[in-house]
């Protein structure tokens, strides 16, 4: 290879590669043609969800001549990093979906602008399907998820355990007694609480239990400190119970992620989400019970707030983005999402039209649980720090750390972060 051929190879490769370059994500004004609105979703690898988006986009693009929505799907596990990187490069798309708890942080960071949708639309949605920061609506979603206790009716009946209802859930004493009875009946680990999972699951699943016990992740009146909420006597009581559940073998962190242990009758109860319901219905059939979580003291609570849509602050066609979103919040699309994804529709009209979530649908209990017990994770930009701190503290306690000092440490970490960010606007 001589010098000329080397230079030729390098030049041709460079030209070829630069030819594959793309313009940024900023919306493109195609002269006289429709303005292009870029849209990012976390749904790559989820054909059911993508199918509905494609349908909505095709319908919207065909319904008018001013805007053309183009979508790019990202895998969920990589999505937030992609958004943060795009924001750093000032290359955010016009429309983006966000997991509910992250919305205040991204609103505070200036990634998204107030949504500005017709209030008639946002008012019709489940409260947990709307993302609010500092009294402004920044996001809205088509659906929500919900957690429940899965059980077999035959198992509860055989062991003389009362079947709880949303009006009369298990008290903590009843729950403890049920777990003890089931353990005596031969279930080595009677409850699959999902502790083998990691990440946001821990805050989503277990902070509602803490709230049910009377504690919280942060003082929601001020959003400035976790003191008293995360380390108060109620929180200490709850985490003492939490640690005890593992100590006594009622729950374990060594199972497999998912609901397979319940489906194969290795555990009697499973604290899990609506996304596992169809597999359990297939495995258990009519014997499946979808029960409210126990009342730890102030009434049952489950996590709320799932994926929602927002408009980036750099969107050059916010009116087009709003037009698309308003078009997309039709009940027919929300129903399609719900039935394709097996998630709870955000409007009552869509729920009624749903195969699974209508009044006589097999998964209707989730709608009631969501309406009655769903609690949003704190709507503060500090939430990502609160969540990761909570997860670490809860895992330490599960593994035997002292409850009081661990919670005090978590509070100090959260408060320091809030202080160093000047209260995140509160």
């Amino acid at each position: 290879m001589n010098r000329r051929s080397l230079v030729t190879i390098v030049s041709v490769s460079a030209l070829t590669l630069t030819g594959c370059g793309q313009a940024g994500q900023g919306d493109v004004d195609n002269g006289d043609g429709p303005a292009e609105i870029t849209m990012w979703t976390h749904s790559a690898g989820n054909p059911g969800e993508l199918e509905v988006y494609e349908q909505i986009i095709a319908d919207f693009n065909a319904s008018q001549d001013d805007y053309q929505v183009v979508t790019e799907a990202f895998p969920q596990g990589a999505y937030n990093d992609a958004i943060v990187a795009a924001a750093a490069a000032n290359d955010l798309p016009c429309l983006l979906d966000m997991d509910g708890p992250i919305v205040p942080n991204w609103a505070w960071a200036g990634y998204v602008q107030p949504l500005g949708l017709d209030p008639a639309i946002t008012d019709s949605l489940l409260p947990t399907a709307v993302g609010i920061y500092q009294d402004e609506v920044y996001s809205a979603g088509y659906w929500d998820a919900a957690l429940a206790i899965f059980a077999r009716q035959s198992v509860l009946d055989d062991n003389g355990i009362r079947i709880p209802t949303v009006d009369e859930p298990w008290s903590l004493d009843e729950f403890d007694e049920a777990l003890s009875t089931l353990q005596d009946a031969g279930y080595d680990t009677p409850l699959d609480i999902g502790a083998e999972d990691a990440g946001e699951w821990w805050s989503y699943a277990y902070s509602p239990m803490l709230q049910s016990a009377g504690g919280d992740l942060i003082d929601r009146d001020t959003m400035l400190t976790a003191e008293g909420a995360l380390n108060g006597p109620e929180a200490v009581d709850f985490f003492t119970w939490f640690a005890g559940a593992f100590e006594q073998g009622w729950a374990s962190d060594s199972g497999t992620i998912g609901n397979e242990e319940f489906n194969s009758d290795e555990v009697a109860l499973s604290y899990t989400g609506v996304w596992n319901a169809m597999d359990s219905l297939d495995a258990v059939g009519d014997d499946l019970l979808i029960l409210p979580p126990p009342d730890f003291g102030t009434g049952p609570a489950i996590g709320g707030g799932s994926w929602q849509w927002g408009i980036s602050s750099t969107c050059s066609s916010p009116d087009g983005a709003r037009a698309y979103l308003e078009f997309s919040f039709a009940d027919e699309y929300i129903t399609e999402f719900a039935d394709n994804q097996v998630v709870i529709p955000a409007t009552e009209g869509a729920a009624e039209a749903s195969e699974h979530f209508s009044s006589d649908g097999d998964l209707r209990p989730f709608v009631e649980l969501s309406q009655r017990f769903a609690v949003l994770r704190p709507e503060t930009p500090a939430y990502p720090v609160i969540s990761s701190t909570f997860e670490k503290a809860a895992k330490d306690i599960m593994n035997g750390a002292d409850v009081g000092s661990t919670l005090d440490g978590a509070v100090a970490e959260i408060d320091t972060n809030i202080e160093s960010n000047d209260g995140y606007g509160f």
Partner: protein
Amino acid sequence: MTTDSLTERVVLRRRKVWSYTAMSALAVIFLFPLVFMVVSSLKPDSQILADIGSPQAFLPVGDISLDNYFGVFDRVPFGRFLFNSVLITVLTVGFGLIVNSMAGFALSRMRWRGRSLVLSLVIATLIVPFETVAVPMVYWVSKLPTLVMEGGMVKYDFGWLNSYHVQIVPFIANAFAIFLFTQYFSTIPKSLDEAARIDGANWFTIYRRIVAPLAGPAFATVAILTFLPAWNQYLWPLMVVQQESLRPVMVGMQYFFQLNTAWGEVMAYTSLITLPILIVFLSFQRAFVSSVAASGVKG
């Protein structure tokens, strides 16, 4: 045959048996993950989870099928991802060999002011984790000038995001590779350069005709050591590539981690993306071992 030599042979044979037994045990331990991956790729999710904890996890028994592989092709554009990874890896390694060896040549063979300082700076960059500079790098590559094709015309624009070259160019220059070339070139007698200079050769000719041909093991080692990170790129493409058609295989892994992880498909996908690496390593096994031994580098 004396008793002593007989005893010696028995001892040697015993030693051999023990050493082969130990090596076989190690081989089995190292093969277990691969066997589990391939076997699980043939099973439905429920059976994978049910078999965990028993020897059946390593045996192709039960409900065996290629359904997970079909599922992979339904869920991700696997061919496209594979093409992208091969292209990115080959060009990163190829250009890397040229650029880094030239840099190593300049640092080890040529005399110029500040050479030691530059080498120290290059080595110093080895201690900076990529993750710490990733976000600033995203910002900078988003501002770099580029050429784009629009309507059949080449146009000048800014921003490298969403392209192949943003996944290749930042990784061509590699501090470790430069250091390795520098060290290896230093072992080649300088008298060869001097003789060539007397014969009228310029520096590029000395590099191309004399030093590079004598540094085969160094080139092989660098090729292998830069191949794996290029193939395994995950964080960077995740941050700089938004278009699905430009993503490499590793980003595709995330497609399977939905609310209900498709474990069978995960195993099928990992089997498929491990295959090219296995083929490369098995094909160049001898070259790899000899180059590592010759250059004194271990992974």
